């Protein structure tokens, strides 16, 4: 049995990450653990035994059908800064492209206030616009809002799940997940496909969130909950923690206020956050405009004058319907022209 196959089979057991690490340490290799589970010399459930017993080739074709990649620690697609953690996951299931450079994590409670949600979205967007990758948990509340912000900026983001990669949890974020992938982001989990969202699986996933990040921003958090676990993991990993101050006495800010008392950097608005993060991740390249002007734009703007209907434009440019519609679509998408009633008009302000 080759090592990668054994690790894949073992990952499919869906055991607690600590247990996987202990077992590998004890038996020296993943292959030995798989054999031991098969032989019944490791105490576990029948379900896990059956899952581990399935041949790696079968699993690989299942993963291919799901469009999921299996990335084991030590492989080139496995981020180095995550591999350095003592409790790094043995392997990850990945959809999309996992960025190799560390990003910025924005986390917080699921039961957040609108204040928290607005801040999270603003941070997510600012981080995206700064060109950094946002890392979060795709959960309800703060996590989801941060992802929304990044997606709105058109930048990359990574979502770390506490369930199987093909399990839509929370269901209302299925679409958000897809948009994340469309924007060249990634969805990651250490649990095998089909794993339901069980409570005990979420705390361990938080160490991956902080492990993929160069800084962790806690927007809102109670005194107990996943966000503080992430902050705790960040502290042990040596990742700087930022916290958003809130009203003293308000449950959803008690956690962040505690973090500040204990030494976390307080952050204010999005600009303040970016300025702080530049000290860690390096200065942001503020690009004036990255898009180049498509060749078609000039003639079209001339032909439009101050507005023309689609048919008039076609006549002036001597075009057939298909080319015309394609041209209009491209220029509207790029923001060069706009539809104003019957007319197509040059878009103002120009870029």
């Amino acid at each position, binding site marked *: 049995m080759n090592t990668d196959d054994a690790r894949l089979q073992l990952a499919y057991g869906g055991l607690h990450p600590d247990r996987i690490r202990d077992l590998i340490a004890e038996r020296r290799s993943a292959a030995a653990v798989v054999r031991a589970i098969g032989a019944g010399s490791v105490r576990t459930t029948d379900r896990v035994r059956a899952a581990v017993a399935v041949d790696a080739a079968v699993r690989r074709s299942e993963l291919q059908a799901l*469009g999921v990649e299996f990335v084991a620690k030590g492989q080139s697609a496995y981020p180095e800064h995550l591999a350095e953690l003592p409790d790094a996951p043995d392997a990850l299931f990945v959809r999309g492209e996992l960025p190799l450079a560390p990003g910025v994590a924005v986390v917080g409670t699921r039961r957040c206030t609108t204040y928290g949600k607005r801040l999270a979205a603003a941070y997510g967007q600012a981080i995206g616009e700064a060109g950094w990758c946002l890392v979060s948990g795709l959960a309800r509340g703060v996590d989801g809002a941060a992802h929304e912000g990044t*997606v*709105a*900026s*058109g930048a990359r983001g990574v979502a770390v799940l506490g369930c199987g990669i093909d399990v839509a949890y929370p269901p209302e974020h*299925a*679409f958000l997940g*897809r*948009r994340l*992938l*469309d*924007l060249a982001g990634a969805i990651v989990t250490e649990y095998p496909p089909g794993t339901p969202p069980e409570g005990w699986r979420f705390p361990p996933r938080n160490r991956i969130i902080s492990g993929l990040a160069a800084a962790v921003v806690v927007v809102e958090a109670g005194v107990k909950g996943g966000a503080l676990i992430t902050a705790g993991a960040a502290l042990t990993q040596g990742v700087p923690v930022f916290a958003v101050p809130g009203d003293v006495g308000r449950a959803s800010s008690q956690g962040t206020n505690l973090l500040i008392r204990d030494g976390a950097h307080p952050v204010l608005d999005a600009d303040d956050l970016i300025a702080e993060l530049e000290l860690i991740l390096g200065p942001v390249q503020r690009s004036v405009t990255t*898009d180049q002007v498509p060749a078609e734009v000039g003639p079209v703007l001339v032909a439009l004058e101050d*507005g023309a*209907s*689609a*048919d008039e434009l*076609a006549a002036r440019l001597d075009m*057939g*319907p*298909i080319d*015309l*519609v*394609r*041209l*209009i*679509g*491209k220029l*509207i*998408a*790029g*923001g060069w022209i706009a*539809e*104003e*009633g*019957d*007319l197509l008009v040059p878009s103002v302000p120009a870029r």
Partner: protein
Amino acid sequence: MFGSTTSVALVGVEPQPVEVEAHVTRAAQSKFILVGLPDTAIREARERVRSAMQSSGHHFPSRCIVVNLSPADLPKSGSAYDLPMAISVLAASKMLPVGAEAVVALGELALDGSIRPVRGGLGAALAARSLGRPCLLPPESAAEAALLDGVDIRPVADLAAAVRATAVAPGAVVEPPRPPEGHTLDLADVRGQMAARRALEIAAAGGHHLLMTGAPGSGKTMLARRLPGVLPPLTPEEGFETALAWAAAGRPRGRIDRAPFRSPHHSATLAAIVGGGSGVPVPGEISLAHRGVLFLDEVGEFPPHLLDALRQPIEEGSVVVARKGAAVRFPSAVQLVGATNPCPCGYSGDRLVGCRCSQRVADRYKQRLSGPLLDRFDLRVRVTRLEAGELAGPRGEASAEVRRRVVAARKRQHARGSLNRELVGRELDAMAWSPEAKQLLTVAVRRQALTGRGWDRVRRVAATVADLDESELIGEDHMAEALAFRGSP
């Protein structure tokens, strides 16, 4: 002294066989008792059956006659059971040869014994085919039943003919209804409107719901009416489904191979559009448009509750109507085409006439054009009003040409398994997108020019454009076209 023949009741569009049993016994007083959940029209059948039998020269037995309609718990209505009742009574009083009543019969009797048309002829033929019996129908209903192969249909004009028809083997050959000679509307009549014509072609190719916005007289209705002409012909199966729905509504379907086009007015009731009515539910406009086009002119004028009621049937392809204990399912796989003015006066954004609406009124009108149903329109296009010079322009491309491309595109979708209109996110993800296409979509998203819901809508349309191009890979050009029809009502 017992006779039994078969008829049908329509449950939704599904014909259900109904046994019409007659039992004739000696009695001091002549009686005619009718049981088995008949409605008033059926109760009155007693008088019609009696008179018709007498007018046709039969002796009406002065005995105790009990007629039972079975299954007894199925509500039945209408006058179509007259003929089967008469046949059963004749059989029970030994006025027919033994076994002659083993037919499926449907028809209303006139007092002089002639037989009048009824709805459900096609259903009766379907039941007759599954029972392997001959089918006796009024001549008018026989035509619609002749759409079905393998049924021995015997058109009968009066009761005497019906009695003769029960005896003889195979009946006269009935011609299916002749297709009315087509005055089909041709796209060649539409001048200019390049973008709208292309949108119509894409809508036809992918079955996408299409929304057209434009000033009064810009040609929205003209375009919509030409959509059926570019749709592929219905398969025999699809044609039969629509004919069943039409038959249930008591309307014969002319061209069975042509996609229907229905255009209900915005003042129509909920029952008229989704189906209903008191007593036995009748299919509504959405079912008459099954496998065809449902055109909502002035879509903003339809009451919101009506548009909401349309959403589910359109999504699921069938509608369940519940009435008085009976819940029936009607088909409703339609392609929706909406047309709307951009504002109440109609001239907002018009290049020739100015808009006279106040901002507040215009805003409110726009608001009516949002909501869940309007989210279903994959394609949105502005139809511009033409200037006098343009109206005299050259004729457009003919429908036949466009239809050829549409049929080819549909063939590709058929091979994949589903109409592009029905593609969901996961299936879209699995298609081949060129990096440039993805990039263009990303740009559109980044410009905030695209809402979340619009995402899949654009991708569905792009897939259809690629099908029209006979391209496996969905490229930048295809995506650009889809983005051009994203519009905002």
